[in-house]
Each structure stands twice: as C-alpha cells, then as structure tokens.
C-alpha cells in the first residue's frame, strides 16, 4: 500500500493540445462560438460570413453530436466548412482541443485562412470548461431563452469575451427585460461587451462584422 501525491491538473492534456492549436492557427483569428441549441449561431454565421468572405479567407469548423446540416448551410453561402460529429468521439456534448487539433491539421495542410470560426455543440454548460486554443470566446443568447440564463449558467458568461444577444426582432412578442438582463450580466462579468442584433433581419449585424475585423487587425498589427 502507498499513497502518492500527484496534484495533476485533469485538463492538462487538453490545455497542452490547445496551446499546440494556437501555434497551428498562427496569424489567423480563431473564435469559439458557444450557446444553447437554437439560439441562431449558424444563421449568424451565414449572414455575416457572406459579407466577410469577400475580403477574407474563412474556414468554419462545425461541432454537432450528429448530422452535417450546419456545415452544409455554411458551404451554401460559399464558405469552406468542416463538420465534427461528436458521436464519433463517444457522443460528446462539447468540442475538445484534440478534436479541433485533428481538424486543423487537415484544414491547414493545403490552405491558409484569415479566420477560423468554431461553432461549438449547442450547450451552455460543458463547452465552457474546454479551451480549444481560440483567440476569443463568443457566447450567443437569444431573447426567447430568457434574461435569467446568465445567472443559471454563470461560467459561460464569465469566460466569454463577447455576448451576442440575438433575435431582437422578437422582443415585442416575448417577456425579455433588457434592463434586468444587463443587470444580470453586470453581476457576473461587468466588462462583457454586448452586441444586440437580429441575424434574421440583419439589424446591427454590421456591429458584429466590424468586431471580427477589429479582432483580426488587433492580432495582426505587429
């Protein structure tokens, strides 16, 4: 019998691979978009990448438990898209650094990109614990989900660099109180930037596109 103290971080392996991903990603700007299912991540990407693709080289990595529907939707707007089905990795509820690493090696073998956009599995919980090597974490919340979600899933909103409040065209029809929503965010992450938009109607979508360009410039200014 013997006890050994190891004090090892369980996420060590994931974090090491995430660091390696950062190296592979190099000068491209990599964003990890997270939200619950149906908040409008894919619609947001369809609408914004359609504009951005005219000036930038973009690759999208789609994460879903099953189907290639989302990758197909992105390809339909003329952007390169790659689907990870987590059912091939034991049915995971999130993407981890290793899955992204395998995909990046394939994607970056032949082509170079300015933007690498990762659309995580729809889930406000698990993806929050896994670093992928991204530059920015973006969380999307839609007004139909309710203003209390930041309080129910605080970690996701704590770690995010940007919050997109989507489906604002539905505000007249739902009980979503913008003021208490902002108060909830302030409690958890007072510095979190919020962009309120409608991916469907296109309202304020330019703010999001400009943010992406700004991040790209910031990363590549030297």
């Amino acid at each position, binding site marked *: 019998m*013997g006890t*050994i103290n*190891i*004090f090892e*971080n369980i996420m060590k392996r994931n974090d090491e691979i995430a660091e390696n991903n950062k190296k592979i990603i190099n000068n491209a700007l990599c964003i990890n978009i997270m939200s619950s299912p149906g908040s409008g991540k894919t619609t947001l990407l369809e609408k914004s990448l359609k504009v951005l693709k005219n000036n930038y080289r973009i690759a999208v990595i789609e994460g879903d438990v099953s189907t290639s529907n989302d990758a197909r939707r992105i390809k339909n707007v003329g952007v390169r898209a790659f689907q990870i089905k987590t059912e091939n990795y034991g049915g995971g509820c999130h993407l981890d650094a290793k899955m992204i690493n395998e995909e990046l090696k394939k994607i970056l073998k032949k082509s170079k990109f300015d933007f690498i956009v990762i659309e995580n599995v729809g*889930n406000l919980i698990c993806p929050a614990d896994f670093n992928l090597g991204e530059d920015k974490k973006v969380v999307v919340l839609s007004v139909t989900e309710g203003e209390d979600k930041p309080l129910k899933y605080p*970690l996701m909103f704590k770690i995010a660099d940007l919050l997109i409040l989507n489906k604002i065209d539905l505000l007249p029809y739902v009980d979503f109180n913008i003021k208490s929503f902002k108060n909830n965010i302030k409690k958890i992450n007072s510095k979190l930037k919020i962009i309120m938009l409608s991916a469907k109607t296109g309202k304020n979508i330019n703010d999001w596109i400009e943010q992406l360009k700004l991040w790209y410039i910031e990363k590549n200014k030297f």
Partner: protein
Amino acid sequence: MHEVSIAEEIKNVVIKKLNENNGKKVKKIKLLIGEMTTIVPEALQFALTIVSENTPMEDCKVKIKVLKTKARCNLCYKEFFIRDNNFLCSKCKTHEIEIIQGREMIIQSVEMER
C-alpha cells in the same frame, strides 16, 4: 454531461501513475474540483465507476473535495467567497476582482496496492 470524458481523462492519468509506480490496484483517489467548473460531483463519481470497470481502478474509493469560488479585490485586496454569482467585492463593491479559487480540476493523490 461531460463527466464521462473527464472521468476517462482521470483514468488515463491514474493508470499511468499506477504503472510508473509498479502498483497493482488503485484503492483510493482524491480529487479537488472547483465550484466554478461545470462538473457535478455526483455525476463524476458515477462516471468514474463506469469507466473503471475491468481496470485496476475498479471499485476504488473516490473522494471529491469541492473548492468554493474565492476572489480577491484588486483595489482593497480583500479575499472573499463568491455567493449567489455576485462577482463584486464584498467590501468596496467594485467589480475589479480576480478569481483565485474555484476553477480547479485536480487529481490530488492516488492510493495504491503494490
């Protein structure tokens, strides 16, 4: 929901340590899990039982210590625990705080039979 993948990772590390130390069987593992992770301790316990089946970890005891979320104020340096997701200094009420505990996922120790 992702406790199974976390459990798999724990198993990989523990079995590696067991082999490195010429151990035969894992008797007990101690884990430190921060409150500000998305791990549910009961679910992790259950997931570990499942992934340990037919391995030297089978039937080992798992002790999980939950570490409460703790922060330090960057202005008045007060250290305090975060309650009800209120990420503001309990003394000077500013948001200029730093999380100093609560994000851990650590295998603290492994007890083994040699």
